[in-house]
């Protein structure tokens, strides 16, 4: 019995053109929320709790950081997850962006 290039029991690795797994799995993408003075503070706290599942205390800490410092780094994730979070925050109307850390 002959096997492919991989030992028995291990899946074949197939490269898909146009997809860079290194980029997608790199946990170096920051999700940043910027101050938008019109958003209610309680609303921002609510959105952080909904999107990230945070406690009220943690959500309020980040909300206050946005309010006082103009921005808060909410999380550091892979590209795919960071993109997902930014999209969720945009759906709620918050001013959120992505940044590569490093």
């Amino acid at each position, binding site marked *: 019995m002959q096997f492919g290039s991989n030992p028995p029991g291990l899946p074949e690795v197939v490269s898909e053109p146009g997809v860079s797994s290194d980029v997608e799995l790199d946990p170096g993408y920051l999700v940043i929320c910027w101050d938008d*003075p019109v958003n209610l503070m309680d609303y921002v706290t609510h959105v952080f709790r909904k999107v990230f599942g945070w406690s009220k205390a943690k959500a309020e800490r980040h909300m206050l950081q946005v309010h006082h410092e103009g921005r808060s780094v909410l999380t550091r994730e892979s590209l795919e997850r960071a993109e997902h979070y930014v999209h969720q925050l945009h759906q709620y109307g918050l001013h959120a962006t992505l*940044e590569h850390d490093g």
Partner: protein
Amino acid sequence: MRLVRTTDGGWTWHLSRPEWSLLTAIAALFPLVPPEHHQVTRDGSGQGVPVDPALLHESLAAHTAELQARVRGWIRGARQPSGRKGLVLRLTAADLEHWLQVLNDVRVGSWLRLGCPDQATLRGLELTPANERHLFLMEFCGSIQARFLEAIEEPDDPSTD
């Protein structure tokens, strides 16, 4: 707008006729924030992150269209107020999340049309006959948002910190 009852399935509110009319107007105005307001990167160029901003904008546009259909359908399906007493509304948790997004959009969109004034002092307010209704809309949306948020506030769970 007054919270009448809270149950496992949602919240029951009493609205006056003017409040109902305003909510209907807000649903008709949504969306008010222009799509280009949301950017993937701070400078809007998309440089530095391998993300196609057009895809995110498309996805956001699809979400907005779905939200628009939901709230307008919800308005159509709600029992219209008869007489002067106003009406009773029952909202599920999902309904409230949708409404919070819609109210926030109309609030932010109104603020943009007013020239992004300072919230405390209204410095920078550029009031014209064309945008003056947005000052009222911004305040009304904020007050309804605050009531909804107060009603749905969940107790803190320290284990998730």
